[in-house]
């Protein structure tokens, strides 16, 4: 394993961001270190020295990871919050709004499948339509979407 690969492995270990962001950061850092090492080799350094120097110029792996975490942690939190929207909206319609309408005598019959189907689909789209860079919460969004869809049928 080269020194650059070791550095990237350490960076991955300390990042603690979502998988897509982690992959992008590692690709970007890899590209930087490779180009930096290549430039140093052109200046006369051997492979080992050039990689060591490129890493030294890049900076302490923990510090880089800490700064990256600080930038990206809010996105993860925002996205996870946004992921709650599908289930929150679906449940609030099912448990609060529709019973309220029914109790007021404005609602007849059992509207569950069609109404919830339409509402759930709209709710599932909310994070995608409103959240900038909502990709941070793919996993959570998918999880809560499944719960919301499951609620439609009950």
């Amino acid at each position, binding site marked *: 394993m080269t020194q650059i690969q070791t550095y990237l492995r350490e960076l991955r270990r300390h990042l603690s961001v979502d998988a897509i962001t982690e992959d992008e950061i590692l690709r970007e850092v890899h*590209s*930087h270190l490779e180009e930096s090492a290549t430039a140093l080799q052109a200046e006369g350094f051997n492979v080992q020295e050039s990689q060591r120097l490129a890493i030294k110029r890049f*900076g302490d792996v923990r510090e880089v990871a800490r700064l990256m975490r600080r*930038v990206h942690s809010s996105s993860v939190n925002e996205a996870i919050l946004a992921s709650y929207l599908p289930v929150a909206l679906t449940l609030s319609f099912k448990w609060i709004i529709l019973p309220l309408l029914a109790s007021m005598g404005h609602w007849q019959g059992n509207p569950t499948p069609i109404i919830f189907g339409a509402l759930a689909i709209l709710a599932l789209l909310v994070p995608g339509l409103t959240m900038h860079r909502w990709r941070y919460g793919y996993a959570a969004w998918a999880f809560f979407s499944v719960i919301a869809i499951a609620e439609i049928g009950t």
Partner: protein
Amino acid sequence: MSPARDMRKGSTTVLILSLVAERPMYGYQIAKELERRSEGYFDFKEGTLYPALHRMEKEGLLRGEWQVVAEGPSRKYYHITEKGKRALVDVAAEWTTFSRKILAILENVQGVKPGTM
């Protein structure tokens, strides 16, 4: 942190915006351009540049775009956005005023000799 380092840290956004406003650049290129144009004055750790770039991308000042390179790993080029251009104009004006005012105050510092009353 030394005053010089503190000032350099505070200027990261405007420096990056001004470089990327000229043409889209990727991280390594930005680091080298900053080093070259400042004649080594901005000798920061290159890895600290990326959190700044990512923060600016999240704020909508920059837009990142991956480009495949024939030889070697692909690169993420940063483009300035309309919001970034407006921010650059504002921040550059702020820095110009700031440095002018500081220079006006520091005008007589050359006459000061440490150790004398």
